[in-house]
C-alpha cells in the first residue's frame, strides 16, 4: 500500500465512470457498447491491458491493486462492487 494519506475516497459510480472512460480510451469502444454484466474479455481486454488498468486504477485510488483482480471479478458490475466495498473499508 502507498502512503495512507493519499487514499482517495470514492463512490461506486465514480469507480464505474473511471473504468468505463478507461476502456473507451484504451480499447477504442463506444460508451454504450459497454455492458456492465459482460465479461471484460468480451471487450477484447487482454492480460497486458488488465495489468495496466489495475496499475493505473490503483494509482488513482491511492493503493495498490492486485494484477489478477479482473480474473476474480470478471465483469464491470462485480469489479465495481468489490472495489466500492474495499474503498469504504480503507
Amino acid at each position, binding site marked *: 500500500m502507498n502512503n495512507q494519506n493519499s487514499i482517495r475516497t470514492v463512490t461506486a459510480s465514480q469507480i464505474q465512470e473511471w473504468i468505463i472512460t478507461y476502456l473507451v480510451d484504451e480499447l477504442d469502444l463506444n460508451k454504450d457498447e459497454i455492458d456492465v454484466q459482460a465479461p471484460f474479455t468480451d471487450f477484447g481486454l487482454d*492480460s497486458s491491458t488488465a*495489468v495496466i488498468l489495475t*496499475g493505473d486504477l490503483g494509482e488513482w485510488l491511492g493503493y495498490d491493486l*492486485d*494484477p*489478477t483482480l479482473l*480474473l476474480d471479478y470478471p465483469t464491470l458490475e462485480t469489479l465495481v462492487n468489490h472495489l466500492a466495498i474495499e474503498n469504504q473499508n480503507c
Partner: protein
Amino acid sequence: METAKENKIANKPNKLHYQGASAQAIQYHYDLSNEFYQLWLDTTCSYSCALWEDAETLEEAQIKKLDYHITQAGAQEAQHVLDIGCGWGSILKRLVNQYHVKQAVGLTLSQAQQDWIATWNHPQIDVRLEGWAEHQPEIPYDAIISIGAFEHFANTKLSSAEKVDAYRNFFNRCHEWLKPGGRISLQTIIYENAGEEDVNSFLSQEIFPDSALPRLAEIVQAAERIFEIDILRNDREYYVRTLRAWLKNLRANRAEAIQLVGEKQVAAYEKYFGIAMIGFHSGNLNLSRISLKRIDAPRFNKH
C-alpha cells in the same frame, strides 16, 4: 551406450546441436544487474516459484522449495550433486552448508551469476559458465536438480516434435551422468490451457526472448523409458503468490531500482510480474515439479 564403468563416465564424442535459448538471450535477461535482482528476491536469491506450504514469508517459502528439491533428488549427504541452471546459487549453498554434500556443481549461462557465486570462494562449490549441452563431468552424479531452467531448453523455432527431441537429449545426458538409482528433481513452468500462439508477446519478446515453454506431455514423452516419474505436483497458485511478493518488494524499493536499471526496465518488470500472475491465476500457465528416477536398464536403445 551405457558403459559408465565403475566411477568413470564413458568418454564419447560430444557434438550436440543445442536447441535452447542462446547464451546471448539468457544474458540479456539474467545479466541485467545482480543488485537489481537482489532488491526484490528473497535473501537466498531464488528466482523461481516458491513452495508456500506452511510458510509465511517469501524467504521461508523459498527455503521450503529448496529443501523439497534436495529431498526429492535424494541429494542429502551426497558426494556429488549437479544443479542445472543454478541462478545465484541458492541450491548450491544449501547443499554444501546444510546438507553435507561434498561437491556441488552449478551450471549457468549467465556471466553475472557465475561471477556472483565465484566471489564466495567456496571450496565445495564449482560454478561453471556452461550450458548443459557442453557439460562433461568426469565422475557421475548422485543427484541432479534443475529449477526454473527447463523453460529455456527449447527455442521458439521448434515444432512440438523437435522440442521433444531437444528435451530427450537433455534427459539422455542426465541419464549418462547419474549413478544407478539416481534422481532428478525438476521444476519448470509449462503451458497449461494455452499454447505458444497465446503467449503474451511482451513476455516472449522483451522479457524471455528465444525461449518456448514445454507442455507436460512433451516432458513426459522425452523422459519416457529412461526415467520413471515418481511424483508430479502442479503449483500454479504458488507462483501467483511468489510473483506478488516480488512485485511488492520491487514497488517498495522502486526508487533504488530505478537508479540501478532505469524507469523503463522497472516498469517492464512490474508489467511482466503482473502478466505472469494473470497467466498462472487463469490456468493458462502452470508450474510443475517433477521427481524422476533413473531407469537403470532401459529395455531398448535409448537413442
